[in-house]
């Protein structure tokens, strides 16, 4: 089956990101295709490239990146939710005249239309809220 995950909880604020990552790994372990994780609302903070949690805690951002590298899972970040929270890639930083950027590949800034597309294209869309 083709799965997609919608994640709306901020990392380290509530359990949503941990639950979503655990679910994602299990989806893949059962042989399904995980097309994408869509980060929306405070979930966009999962894409912060400067995240530096203590070494004895799970590194959520790295966890998502590993899913992308090992299983080709697209990591789609809602651009509207990201920009207003100070999360932007190099291109958006240049466009807004900011020094430095806070999002990098494999996370990609996309529109909410991508979420609609995922919901139509995938067999299952599972939401993890705050």
């Amino acid at each position, binding site marked *: *089956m083709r*799965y997609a995950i919608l994640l709306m909880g901020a990392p380290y604020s*509530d*359990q*949503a990101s941990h*639950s979503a990552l*655990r*679910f994602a*790994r*299990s*989806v893949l*372990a*059962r042989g*399904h295709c995980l097309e994408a994780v869509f980060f929306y609302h405070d979930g966009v903070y999962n894409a912060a490239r400067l995240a530096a949690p203590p070494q004895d805690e799970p590194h959520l951002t790295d966890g998502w990146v590993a899913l992308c590298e090992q299983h080709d899972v697209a990591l789609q970040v809602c651009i509207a939710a990201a920009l207003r929270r100070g999360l932007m890639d190099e291109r958006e930083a240049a466009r807004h005249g900011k020094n430095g950027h806070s999002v990098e590949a494999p996370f990609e800034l996309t529109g909410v239309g991508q979420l609609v597309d995922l919901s139509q294209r995938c067999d*299952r*869309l*599972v*939401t*993890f*809220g*705050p």
Partner: protein
Amino acid sequence: MNLHIVNRSPASYRVHEQALAAMGPEDRLLLIEDGVQGALPALVRHFEAIPGRLFAQREDLESRGLLGRCDGEVQVVDVEGFVQLTEQAEQTLSWY
């Protein structure tokens, strides 16, 4: 059959009432995160309308020291069981 996912404790929130109101006769309800408190004997009465269709996530029970303290009505599933429930459901609805 749809799968409803609730992550809030019925002791603190009333979101489970919305989930129950939206459930069809075959739908199932999975308690995750703080929602697993609803599997305790003291709180399971909130879900008496859906006998045999109430599930709770093992990992979240375990991390809260609640594994083995669930009411007998509740079916405990691990994360793989969670995925299996989503496979069997036509769609999932998350309540939070």
